[in-house]
């Protein structure tokens, strides 16, 4: 595609519900990143994919968070049993290779947990 696409753009959910956030990276980009950003804060690294593999999952805040990537393309970030502290903007980015390159970001998903 022309750019990194994230859906939904906004998601309002009730505490305790599960949510799925989707990221469609730029075609041909092998590296994919998920970040979380709370209001007025910097970027918090969550997870990185090289192809379909996630070499490091240590950034995931708790075992309620999981992510997968299939076909070396689309990635899904799942948050189970959402809590109010999960409210944030979730950003996805991709790059052609894994290191030393610039990232292309999607517009993010604003998650609000009531």
């Amino acid at each position, binding site marked *: 595609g022309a750019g*990194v696409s994230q859906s939904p753009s906004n998601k309002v959910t009730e505490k305790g519900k599960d949510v799925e956030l989707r990221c469609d990276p730029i075609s041909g980009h092998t590296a994919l*990143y998920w970040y979380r*950003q709370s*209001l*007025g*804060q*910097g*970027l918090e*690294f969550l997870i*990185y994919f*090289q192809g379909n593999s996630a*070499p*490091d999952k240590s950034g995931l805040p708790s075992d309620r968070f999981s992510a997968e990537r299939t076909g070396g393309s689309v990635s899904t970030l799942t948050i189970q049993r959402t809590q109010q502290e999960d409210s944030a*903007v979730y*950003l996805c*980015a991709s790059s052609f290779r*894994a*290191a*030393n390159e*610039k*990232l*292309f*970001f*999607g*517009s*993010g998903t604003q998650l609000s947990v009531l």
Partner: protein
Amino acid sequence: SQQGEEDPQALSIQEGENATMNCSYKTSINNLQWYRQNSGRGLVHLILIRSNEREKHSGRLRVTLDTSKKSSSLLITASRAADTASYFCATWEDSNYQLIWGAGTKLIIKP
């Protein structure tokens, strides 16, 4: 963990003036990048400077890198209202697979 640290945290200037933001980091890097973020959503890459470069220009942007001081600066000349945004620096460490991000500088351009 956040390695890059920007200062100032916030900067408010008049349209037409120059804006300077600084970034410091702690370890050896491969390159340093600057990104802009409007309205708290997606970030846009502005410029990348490699560790063996000292200065780089792109339009009204000028970036410098001092590896001895582990610092970088971003200069925006002749600022415009549309430059109002948050600006983040990020570094690729020599032996890492991810960018390390600073907390950002919030720039406000007053008309």
